[in-house]
């Protein structure tokens, strides 16, 4: 964690934005490692894919479209900011005094709602990965909201920069073109990525379905799947990559995913259950849960993959 603090300070001081973005990626990756150490494997997986992966790619894309150097700024305004930050930090530290010690198993947090999940999810849902049980079933509604957040972001990006008439497009295409030239002629990159991309896509499918048993699930799978396409686009040709998954298709999958998730929720109505009750979907509650979780995770994977692909391409080509 000390390492992360060092990175944090470096980010604050550095002015070269490219370095800043790279460091942020490293920050995320370090956080992911920390999560593994803290037993949060699903979270580590997601942070690595989403935080270190997608965020960094998007920031780099933004830098390519804007400028890469932060201008020297005056220090005057930062004084009150420093005061505010120190005060907030002090209040937080004050708040820690009554917190349970790190790792304390008798802390309240581990004794109210959490033990129920650990004890009962085996019987009620029958999946080893308790995080998946909670995410997709017990608190499935939050996850539905989360998928809609991703949906909102994808549509939002489309709305904000998805137009062919934005001024810098020509110069940007040139910039990306230059990158492409250097990458296209680099044999190693091309060969390795051609080998890797199918593996990446397969791995994504594995992660999607295996999430019940180990770390994984819809989000991670969706991001990994998208990264396969993004890799192709970066190394080879953006336009060819786009013809493989045209905007129409990403849009449809984007909507299909959320509609699937919501649909599963509504299906419960017809069987006498509340919204998002999976137990009523099949002959036994447990198999109903399995079916429900399978379907909703798939919906999540679809929308997340489509969203990531859509966002990337919208940034890269500023298209509809």
């Amino acid at each position: 964690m000390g390492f992360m603090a060092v990175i944090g300070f470096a980010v604050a001081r550095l002015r070269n934005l490219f370095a800043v973005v790279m460091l942020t990626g490293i920050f995320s990756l370090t956080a992911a490692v920390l999560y593994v150490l803290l037993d949060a494997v699903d979270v580590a997986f997601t942070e690595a894919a989403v935080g270190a992966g997608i965020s960094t790619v998007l920031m780099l894309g933004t830098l390519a479209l804007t400028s890469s150097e932060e201008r020297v700024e005056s220090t005057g305004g930062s004084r009150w900011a420093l005061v505010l930050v120190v005060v907030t930090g002090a209040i937080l530290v004050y708040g820690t005094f009554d917190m349970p010690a790190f790792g304390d198993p008798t802390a309240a947090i581990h004794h109210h709602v959490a033990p129920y999940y650990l004890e009962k999810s085996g019987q009620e849902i029958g999946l080893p990965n308790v995080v998946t049980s909670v995410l997709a079933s017990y608190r499935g509604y939050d996850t539905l909201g989360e998928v809609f957040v991703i949906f909102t972001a994808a549509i939002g990006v489309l709305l904000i920069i998805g137009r062919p008439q934005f001024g810098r497009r020509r110069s940007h295409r040139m910039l990306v073109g230059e990158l492409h030239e250097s990458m296209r002629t680099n044999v190693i990159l091309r060969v390795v990525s051609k080998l890797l991309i199918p593996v990446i896509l397969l791995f994504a499918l594995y992660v999607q379905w295996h999430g019940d048993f180990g770390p994984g699930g819809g989000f991670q799978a969706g991001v990994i799947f998208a990264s396969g396409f993004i890799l192709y686009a970066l190394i080879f040709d953006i336009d060819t990559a786009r013809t493989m998954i045209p905007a129409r298709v990403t849009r449809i999958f984007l909507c299909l995913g959320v509609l699937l998730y919501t649909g599963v929720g509504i299906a419960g109505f017809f069987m006498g259950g509340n919204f998002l009750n999976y137990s009523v979907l099949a002959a036994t509650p447990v198999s109903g849960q399995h079916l429900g979780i399978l379907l909703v995770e798939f919906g999540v994977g679809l929308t997340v993959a489509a969203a990531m692909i859509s966002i990337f391409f919208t940034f890269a080509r500023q298209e509809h």
Partner: protein
Amino acid sequence: MAALFSSHLPALQVVLALLAAPLCVMLRRPNAAWFIATAVTWALLAIAVVLLGRVLDIGTITYALGNWPAPWGIEYRIDLANAFVLVLVTLIGSVVIPYARASIAAEVEEPRIYLFYCMYLLNLAGLLGIAITGDVFNLFVFLEISSLSSYVMISLSRDRRALVAAYRYLIMGTIGATFYIIGVGMMYQVTGTLNMVNLATLIPDLVDNRTVMVALAFLSVGLCLKLALFPLHMWLPNAYTYAPSAVSAFLAATGTKVAVYALARILFTVFGGSSLIDDFGLQEILVTFAVLAMIGGSAVAVYESNVKRLLAYSSVAQIGYMILGLSMASVIGMTAGLVHLFNHALMKGGLFMVMGCVFFRLSSVQVEDMDGLAKRMPLTMAAFVAGGFGLIGMPLTAGFISKWYLIQAALEKGWWAAVAAILISSLLAVIYVWRVVEAAYFKPPPKGAAEVGEAPLSMLVPMWVMIGMSYYFGIDATLTLDIATGAAETLLGGVQ
């Protein structure tokens, strides 16, 4: 079939809006998207009214999502306070969306319009989700849905300043949401639950816990950022000014109101059973900022020549009124605050719709450009006068009712400074309303002014419906007052 869905209305209240959003995206046509948005909003209004009726009949309704009982699952909990908010939000939406058809068509580029309605539906879903939930983390998720869609909608205006306004709102809003999440995390750490009712029963045993105190602070600051309480209001003026007119109307009437409700819910339902609110001096802090907001907001509005920005600062002041009522923690005070929430939504929504009509014809909202407008756009400017009276608090308007109750509540508590602030800000309101009225009615049109006619009927009718409602509820306020009083009692009564 109807009976089947009838037991699931709480879920449908939000899910219907969520479902409609991707449908708009798939259809790709602006008119179809508008149609879906209108139909769904009206259906949601019907649902909200039915739910309100049920709550009035039988009391608090709960609905367990996934049939997992709380606190292991997420539950929806509808009592008078949030049933009230649900009706308000859907009502505003139902009136603004028909209006939006012409307004948005004029202000947003055509190929994007169908996506605009998708965003609107997501925003609506987010707001309704915040109001209806009984789980603090679920509130965060829907808070972000509504916030993200707001940022996007604001940025859609052709004016490039909207982009910067949206960006600043994004930064401040995300800081607020992060503070909220810090608060939730701390609360979870010491209680082990995320369910509001559950938290309420566990907190009284933890009053001395410093983590809880800090959590309360962060939750409050986070929500105060979202409801734009002075001095955390900085994102609001630009966001409301540069957003497309229909967006300003909708957001001004709903966004901050739902945040006020959320604050009330956290302070009174979750933390209410304990003495924390009093110990902490939270009351004093809120009142101070509320009074500053009331006077400061109104004062700045006086100097504004961009009428939308004038109305935005007026909103900052009006939010001060709501928080003043809330912080009194008395039944009359809360009632006043809640009634004002409703009334202000109607008035401000209507006024922003007026400016939308003005912009539609003039492409400007500067007061100088509005000279002599009353002759050319009589119905529109009459609406402004009517709404303006409401802001001032003239009798017969809804604004009068809320101010009357607020003053009564403040007198009951002996808060003279607050009474003075209410009166001063009302006087200031007279000044800033007069500025616009004077220009429109008493100044000659500028030379070479365009020959403009009235705004189209599709915009005039909803606008007058909104203003009309603010008068209806001003003349006969029994319905709103009864519900608000009931809501106040529910909130202050803690958890039964």
